[in-house]
């Protein structure tokens, strides 16, 4: 399934388009869930014998659309802040001697890429991992775990930072951050919706009150399944948008350092640290340089593994990087 990386200009415009597409899909999905709620639970447009009728304004649809739009706008504006705080990331104070080398490496990659300097964060977690987030290169943040600083040497650190700077330059961070924030919203809504339905359904014996036949029943099933599977669908979407970007970020990161071997060595060390990165929650896994589940998640290959992984297998990434460095595998 691995295609060759596209060039960064194509990637930038694709990311701008994808962000809008993801947000539109999300708002539509919310509207759909809301409409089902109107239809089955609030009894929208429903006629009862004796002139009684349900609500004649689709409150839930309107509410869900409004909520969806606000969440989408919010995810773009402050998704990065949410992602950083959910990982427990803390800003690095300039001049902190512990992170002198890391800060220098970030400065170096800032110069090499010609981008504004990103905010630098440390995640107090012993497992090596890193991610970048933000709305655009002017408002970007790079977060690395304490384990990454401890385990990697200077060149390897540089390789990882270059990889993250490429995500910043390609606008991957925008798409990925919006996806991360929206996954959170979908999970929340799905849980809330199911709870509401148990409560509402009991009161109105939902399906029987609706005279509606087969069409209505099919809609009910689709709606329920959509609600139940929403978190899973959202995560599969995140995985799909994430995998391809990793190859491109590896390649353009190597273009910044002109040292693909160092990134390959860094990936090897990250892969060898089998512990999961506990600080990083499932909903933000697709942002990281390597799957925070650690160990086996990074070694799987094959179609099914491809389908369910947020990241391409590390072995394959290392092979590609070593080929760039003319090293024999």
């Amino acid at each position, binding site marked *: 399934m691995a295609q060759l990386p596209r060039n960064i200009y194509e990637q930038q415009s694709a990311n701008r388009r994808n962000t809008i597409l993801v947000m539109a899909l999300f708002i539509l999905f919310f509207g759909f869930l809301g409409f089902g709620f109107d239809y089955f639970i609030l009894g929208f447009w429903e006629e009862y014998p004796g002139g009684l009728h349900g609500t004649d304004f689709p409150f839930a649809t309107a509410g869900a659309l409004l909520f969806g739009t606000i969440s989408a706008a919010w995810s773009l504006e402050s998704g990065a802040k949410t992602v950083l705080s959910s990982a427990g990331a803390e800003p690095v104070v300039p001049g902190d*001697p512990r992170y*002198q*080398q890391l800060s*220098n*490496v970030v*400065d*170096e*990659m800032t*110069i*090499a*890429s*010609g981008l504004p300097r990103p905010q630098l964060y440390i995640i107090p977690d012993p497992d090596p991992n890193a991610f970048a987030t933000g709305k655009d290169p002017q408002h970007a943040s790079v977060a690395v775990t304490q384990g990454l600083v401890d385990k990697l040497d*200077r060149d390897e650190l*540089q390789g990882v930072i270059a990889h993250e700077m490429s995500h910043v330059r390609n606008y991957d961070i925008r798409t990925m951050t919006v996806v991360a924030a929206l996954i959170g919203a979908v999970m929340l809504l799905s849980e809330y919706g199911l709870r509401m339905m148990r409560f509402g359904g009991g009161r109105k014996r939902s399906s029987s009150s609706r005279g509606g036949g087969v069409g209505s029943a099919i809609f009910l099933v689709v709606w329920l399944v959509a609600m139940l599977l929403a978190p899973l669908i959202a995560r599969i979407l995140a995985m799909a948008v994430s995998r391809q970007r990793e190859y491109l970020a590896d390649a353009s990161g190597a273009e*910044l350092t*002109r040292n693909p071997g160092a990134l390959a060595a860094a990936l090897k060390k990250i892969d060898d640290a089998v512990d999961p990165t506990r600080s990083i929650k499932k909903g933000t896994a697709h942002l990281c340089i390597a799957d925070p589940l650690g160990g086996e998640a990074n070694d799987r290959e094959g179609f099914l593994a491809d389908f369910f992984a947020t990241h391409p297998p590390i072995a394959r990434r290392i092979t590609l990087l070593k080929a760039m460095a003319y090293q024999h595998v």
Partner: protein
Amino acid sequence: MTFFVGFIVLVMVVLLWVVVQYNRLVTLRNQTENGWKQIDVQLKRRHDLIPNLVNTVKGYMEFEQETLEKVIRARNAAVAATGVADAAEKEGALTGALSRLFALAENYPNLKSNENVRQLQEELSSTENKISFARQFYNDIATRFNIAQQVFPGNIIASLFGFQRSELFEVHDAGEREVPDVNLSLKK
């Protein structure tokens, strides 16, 4: 009448295209100039760091007075350099003197364990990296600027408005181009 309108539209489209091309070239020229200035910023930083480093290591490296003096002399020559070619040569000599100093420092365990020296050394090697990354960035952006001036039809606009190609940064000192000796014995 339709012919006239069509003609006006055509002229407008051509003018718009010229404006877009011209602005692109101006943007690239400014980015190239800025890229060049970034190299100077990093070189200046290196000049400022060196006296500090020499003062800190002096006590530990009494027997290497000559090397230290060479570094200081190379630094002062680089500060005083005038013109691009001259500066490139003097900065190259300074890079050589510094790497010799760092190589010698490996022989002084006390020196390596000194926190101040370690920090200064990190700052200096980072500055070395920044200089080469600033050069790399300059060469990348200058190449884009030059390509934009040479490809058709950008070359028409470029020659019309007198854009000049930027010179790429090259390694002038033949010694720098040589492959360094590789020590194949294991370190530890």
